C-alpha cells in the first residue's frame, strides 16, 4: 500500500515507484560527471534524489555525501556541510582524518577540520581565504582515491542565491570559485547530483556568474506522471484503506478532477477525503475545486507569471526577443516543436537560444523528449504550463 505523505521527499512505502524514470536517471548518473535536476517545487525532485541517494549508498564501496544547502550562505558552511556528510568509516572519511593532521595545511584550517572530526563542531574562523588550497587538496585527494563517490546537493540554487545575497560585492568571485572547484572535483571523479527548485541557469544568468563551470552536467527533469502512472498511484493509495470500495470509477473521476498529475496534487486530493469510506465519484470534482485546485493551481500559475517577470527584470530585451518567442513557438504548437525551435536573430545566437531553452526547462515551462526521428522535440512541461499559457494571453492569438 502507498502510504500518503505530503510536504517532503519520501521513500519506502511512502514512495510511488517510477522504474523507467529511476533507471534512466541512474544510467545517466553513471555515464556522466553528474546531473542537474532543477524544476518546479513539489513535483517529486527530492524524492527522486533520495531514491538515487539510497540506491547509490546500497552499492558496495560507493560513498554518498548528501548536503542540504538550505540555510547555507557561505563557502565555509558549505564545506563544513560536505565534511559533516562524509561517513567516518568511509575512505574519504579517513582522508579527512589525515587532512586534519596534515602539517602542510595552515593551522587555521587544520584546527577547523580537527574540530569537525573530533567534536562535530564548526569553527567560526573564516577559511574561505584558503579556498584555492582546500579545493586543490580535495581535488588531489579525489584523484588519489578512485573509489566511487557521489556528492548530492539538494537546493543547490538556494546556496548560490544565498551567497549572492549575503555579500553582493564579492559574490561573483566567490560563487565562480566554488563552481570552478566543483567542476574540478567532478573531473577528478566526484560525481554530482545537484538539485533545486530555482532554475540554476536563470539564476547564474541573473547574477552574471560564470556558466561555463556547469556545462559538463547533464540536465534531467521530473516529468508529470502519465495517466497510467497516476491511475496506478491512486489505486495503490486507495485499494487497501477502502477495502475495495474505491472503484475504477472513483479513480477516473479523481483524475479528471485533478488538473495535474504531479504527486503533490494526487496526495493533496487523497488526503482531503476519507479513503476508508470514499465519497461518491461525482463529488470529487467539487472536492478538488475547493480543497486542491483552489490553492495549488493558483500558486503554480502565479509562479509562472512571477518567473517571467523576473526574466524581464533581469534582461527585458532577452525576455521579449528570445524567451517569449520560444514559449510561443512551443506552447502554441499542440504536438510539440522539433528543434530548431527558433532561428537565431542578431544580437542573439544559437548559444543564447540553447541557454534560454535550458532556463525554461529548469523553471518548469518546457520539457524535451526525443521525437520519432530521434530529433529533439520541445513540449509544455506539464498541464499546468498549458493552463497558464491559456490564461496568460501571451500566445500568438492572445
Amino acid at each position, binding site marked *: 500500500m502507498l502510504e500518503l505523505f505530503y510536504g517532503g521527499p519520501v521513500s519506502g512505502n*511512502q514512495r510511488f515507484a517510477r522504474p523507467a524514470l529511476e533507471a534512466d536517471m541512474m544510467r545517466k548518473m553513471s555515464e556522466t560527471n553528474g546531473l542537474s535536476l532543477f524544476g518546479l517545487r513539489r513535483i517529486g525532485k527530492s524524492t527522486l534524489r533520495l531514491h538515487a541517494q539510497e540506491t547509490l549508498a546500497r552499492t558496495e564501496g560507493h560513498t554518498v555525501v548528501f548536503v542540504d544547502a538550505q540555510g547555507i550562505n557561505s563557502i565555509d558552511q558549505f564545506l563544513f556541510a560536505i565534511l559533516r556528510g562524509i561517513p567516518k568509516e568511509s575512505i574519504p572519511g579517513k582522508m579527512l582524518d589525515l587532512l586534519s593532521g596534515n602539517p602542510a595545511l595552515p593551522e587555521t584550517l587544520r584546527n577547523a577540520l580537527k574540530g569537525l572530526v573530533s567534536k562535530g563542531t564548526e569553527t567560526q574562523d573564516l577559511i574561505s581565504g584558503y579556498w584555492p588550497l582546500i579545493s586543490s587538496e580535495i581535488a588531489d585527494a579525489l584523484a588519489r582515491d578512485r573509489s566511487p563517490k557521489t556528492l548530492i546537493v539538494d537546493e543547490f540554487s538556494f546556496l548560490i542565491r544565498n551567497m549572492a545575497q549575503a555579500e553582493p560585492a564579492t559574490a561573483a568571485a566567490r560563487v565562480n570559485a566554488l563552481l570552478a572547484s566543483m567542476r574540478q572535483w567532478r573531473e577528478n571523479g566526484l560525481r554530482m547530483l545537484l538539485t533545486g527548485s530555482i532554475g540554476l541557469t536563470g539564476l547564474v544568468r541573473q547574477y552574471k556568474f560564470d556558466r561555463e563551470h556547469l556545462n559538463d552536467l547533464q540536465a534531467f527533469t521530473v516529468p508529470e506522471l502519465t495517466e497510467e502512472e497516476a491511475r496506478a498511484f491512486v489505486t495503490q493509495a486507495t485499494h487497501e484503506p477502502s477495502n475495495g470500495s474505491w472503484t475504477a470509477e472513483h479513480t477516473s473521476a479523481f483524475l479528471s478532477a485533478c488538473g495535474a498529475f504531479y504527486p503533490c496534487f494526487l496526495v493533496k486530493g487523497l488526503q482531503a477525503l476519507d479513503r476508508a469510506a470514499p465519497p461518491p465519484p461525482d463529488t470529487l470534482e467539487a472536492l478538488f475545486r475547493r480543497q486542491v485546485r483552489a490553492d495549488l493551481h493558483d500558486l503554480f500559475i502565479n509562479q509562472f507569471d512571477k518567473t517571467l517577470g523576473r526574466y524581464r527584470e533581469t534582461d527585458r530585451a532577452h525576455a521579449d526577443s528570445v524567451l517569449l518567442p520560444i514559449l510561443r513557438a512551443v506552447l502554441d504548437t499542440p504536438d510539440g516543436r522539433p528543434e530548431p525551435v527558433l532561428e537565431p536573430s542578431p544580437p542573439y545566437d544559437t548559444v543564447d537560444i540553447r541557454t534560454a531553452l535550458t532556463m525554461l526547462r529548469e523553471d518548469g515551462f518546457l520539457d524535451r523528449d526525443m521525437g520519432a526521428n530521434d530529433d529533439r522535440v520541445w513540449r509544455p512541461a506539464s498541464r499546468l504550463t498549458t493552463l497558464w499559457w491559456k490564461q496568460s494571453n501571451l500566445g500568438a492569438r492572445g
Partner: protein
Amino acid sequence: MSDHPLIQTFMTHRMTDDAVRALATGREEETAQVLDAVRRSHAAAPGTLQHVLIYGPRGFGKSFLTRLVQIRAGDLDTESAPLRFVLLPEEQKNVTRNPHALLAYIAHKLADLRTGEDGSWTESMFQWPDPAKEAAHWNEAANTLEAELDRSFPGGQGLAVVAIENFDFLLSSLFKEEIAEQRLRGWLDRPGNRVMVLATATGTVDMDYDRPLFQAFQSIRLRPWTPEDCIAYFDRHRRSHGKPPLDDDRRAKARAIADFIGGNPRLAQLLADVLDTQDALSVAQTMTALADKLADYYRRRIDDLPPLAQGLLDALIRGGEPTSQTDLAARVGADGQNAIARIMQDLQRTDIIRGYDEPGGRSVLYQVTDRVFVHFYRLRQGNQSAQDSPLTTILDFLRAFYSRTEQRDQALAYLDQGRPAEARVFADLAAEGGGDGDSPYRTDWAGRLERLESVRPGCLPLPVAEIVARMDACPETAYGLGGADGDPLVRAIIQAQALARMGMAEEADRTLTRALAETANDKTAEALLALERTFLLVDELDRIQEAVTCLRRIGPDVFNDWPPTARTEGLTDLAWSLGALGEHDAAIATGRKAAALAEKTNDIRGQARALLLVAFSLGELGDHQEVLATGREAAALAEKANDIRGQAMALGLVAFSLRQRGDHQEAIAIGREAAALAAQAGAVDEQADALRLVVFSLRDTEQREDAAATALESAELAFSADKAFTAMWSVSIVLESAAETPCPQAIALFGRWMDLCHTQPDANTADWRIALAGLFAAAARARAWESLDALLHDRREAFANAKPLYFFGQEIGRAIAATGRDEGRAMGFASAAGILPRLAAFGADMPYPPAGFNSWISNVVAGLAGACRDPGLLRDVAGLLTTDLAPEAPAQAILLRALADVDAAEKPERILARLDPDVATWIRRVRGLPDPTPRAAKKRSRKR
C-alpha cells in the same frame, strides 16, 4: 458585564482532559486527519514525518483541536515506541530574534517531560541575539535536540509531536529572514527525523511559492461549524450546566445563532446563554457586550488583513451587504472586478466573508460571515443608527431568532412600553415580504378622518393633516396619538392604521374588532368602525367574506344624521364596499343614493365618485348600455371637479363596455383618452388598464402590430413603476399579441417579469410560470431563438427551481400557424423547426415539468391543426415530429398528415371515411365537421 448572559472564555491549555472530551464538537473529520498524520509519523519515526498545519480563523477552535489531539495521541504512546506531546505555550516571547532558540526550547520541554521538572522555564530564557553566529547556533541547537531525543527515546524508536500555535506569527517574526526559514525547512525534512510539527495558523504559512516552507505541511482547514454542530455544542454545554437539552423552539433559535455568528465556535460558546433569553433588548445588549469583550479579537482579525483587504471589507460593510464583486469594485472605484478578485479570494479564505449564489440571478453575492463582527464594526466605526437603536445592526439575527408571531408580539410590547424605534424594527421584520404601501385603506385615510371629525366634531387630538403627516412619517410614534384617555373610537382607528402600516394588519384587525365590541349602542361609532374595518379587511387582509359580515352591521339609515358631505362619503364608501363584495344591486342603489345626495349639496366630486361606482357595478352586471350613460356622466362630472383620475377611471369603464358591445373603434379612442388622462394624473395602474383595453379592441379588429406595440407600452409602464401585478396582466397580453405578430421584445420582457416576481415574491404577485407556453409561442412567432436561448440559459436555475404550474401549449401551435399565414409556409416551417426541439430540451432539463407538459406535443399539434389551413405546412411540420422530440410524436405526425389530406381534398368526407375512426373523429373535432350519420340498417326480408 455581569448583567449580561456571557460566559467566560476558556483557555484550552488549562482545561482538563475530561472537559475537552465533554465539549469536543464538530471536528471529527479534522481530528481524524491529524491523528492519522500522527499515527503515520509515529510509525515512520525515525524517518520522513508528516508535519501538519491547521488553518483557521481566530475563534475556530485551533487550540481546542490541538488539545484534543494531545489527549487522543496519548493512546499511541507505548513503551517500545513512546510518543511525547510537547504543547508549547500560545506565545513564545522568550525565543524572539533567535531562530535556534525554538529548537532549544523544544529540547528543554522534552527534557521536562522526561524528568518531570520545569527546567524549561529558566533554561529557555531569552538570549541576546548574534546574527553572525546564528548558523552555527542553529546547528548546535539541532544537535542538542537530537541528543535530548536520544535520551527521551532510549530504545531508538519514538516520536515527539511539537504543537506550535500561531505559527504564522512565529514565522513572520522569528523566521523572517529567508535563510532562517530555509534552515527550518531543512530541519523539518532532515533524514531520520523524530520531531513532527503540529502547527496552527490564521494567516498563510506555506502558500508562498517563493518561501522555503512552500507546501511543507499537510494543511487542514477548519471549516465553520454547521448549525447542527452548534446545536450539538449547545446541548453539551447545557448538559454540563445541568440544563435540559434544547427543545424544538430553542433549536430554531440555535440555528439563528449559528447563522448569525457564521459558525464561529468561540462565538457559539459565548452566546450559548442567549438561548434562554426572550427579551430582544437584552439580546442586543449581549451582542454589544460581546462586541466589547471581543474587541481585541476582532481588531486582530482586522489587523491580520492586508490594507487593501481591510479597505474592501470596510466598503462592503459601509456600502451595504450582500453585494457582488462587480458592484463592490464599482463602489470603491476599482478598475473592474478583476482588480479586487484576488483580495476577495483571500477574504473568503480567511472566512471573513462568504459568497453565495444570487437567488434567481447569475451573480455571486458576498457578505461578512460573522454578524457580531459587523455589529462590532458598525459600533466602532461610528455608525449612527447602530448607536441610536441597538437592534438595527442585528436585524439578521432577530429575523431568524424570533418567529413571525414572536416578532409581532415584540413589536406590540415595545409599542406599549413607548419604545417606538424598537417596535418598528420588529414590525418591519414581521412585515417582510408582505404589506401594500398604497392600498385605499391607507391612501384614503385622510378622507375618512375628515368624515370622522365632521361626524364627531372635536374628537381628533390633532388636525387631520397633522395626524396623517405623522402617520406617514412614522407610524410607530403615531400609534400613541389617540392617547390613553382619548376617544376609544379614535384611538382604535389610529392604532389600527399604525399597525397596518407597520405590516401588522392582523393586529390592526384585532384592535378594531375589540373597539367594535365595545361600541354598545353607539350606532355612529359602530358604522365608522365597521367601515374602517371593511377597508382593512378588503385592502390589507383580502378577507372578503368577513368584510361582508362586518358590513351587514351598517344600514344606509345610519348616515341619516351625519352632515351631508359625510353622509355622501359614507354612502359612497358603502357602495364601494358592496361593489367590492360583489353585491352589485345593493351597490348601485346605494351609489345612486349617494350621487343624488351629492347633487343636492352641489358636491360634484362626490357625485362623480358615486356614479363611477354605479357604472362599475352596472358593468359587472353586464348592463353595458347603462354603463355608457352613467360612465360618461361620471366622467363629465369628474372633469368638472378637476378629478382627472376619476375621469380616467370612468372613461375606462366606458371603453370596456364599448368593446363588450363590439364598438371597437370607439372603444380604442375612448381607451386611449382614458390612458392619457391617467398618465396626466400619474395613475400608472389606471393608465396600464386603459391601454390593455385598447389592446383587446385592436386585436379584435386584427390590428395586430398596433396591439403588440400598445401592449408593450402598457408593460413598460408597469415595469417602470415596479408594479408586479399590473405587469402580470400587461405581459400576458404582450405574449398573446406576440403569438400573433412578431414581437421579439416579449422575450426580454418575460425575463424582466421573472426578475420582478423575484423581488416582489408576495402572495399577490402574479407568477410568470402561468405564461411559460406564451413565452415559447412568442419566440416561435418571432423566431427569436437567440433571445429565447439566452433567457433559458441565463435563468436556468429559476426555471429548474420553479415549482410546477400547468403548461398549455396550443398557443405555440397557433403561433406557428400565424407565421405560416402571414409570412409563408417556409417561415412557418422554420418557426416549428426552431421551437419543437427547444420545447423537448426544456422539458428534459426541468426536474419537475409543469402539469400538462407531458402532453405538450399533442397540445402544440392541436393548436396548429386548429389554426392552420395550409396542407403543405401541416405535412412539413408532421415531418418534424420524430421520436427525438417525444415518444408520441410520430402518432401526432399521422394526425397532421391525415388532416392535410382532408384539407386538400375536394371531398373531405371521402378521405375521412377511409381514415382510422379515432383519427377521423379528431379531425372532425378540429375542423368542426359533423359526425357521419349512421346509415339505417336495411331490414332483411326473411325468406320464407
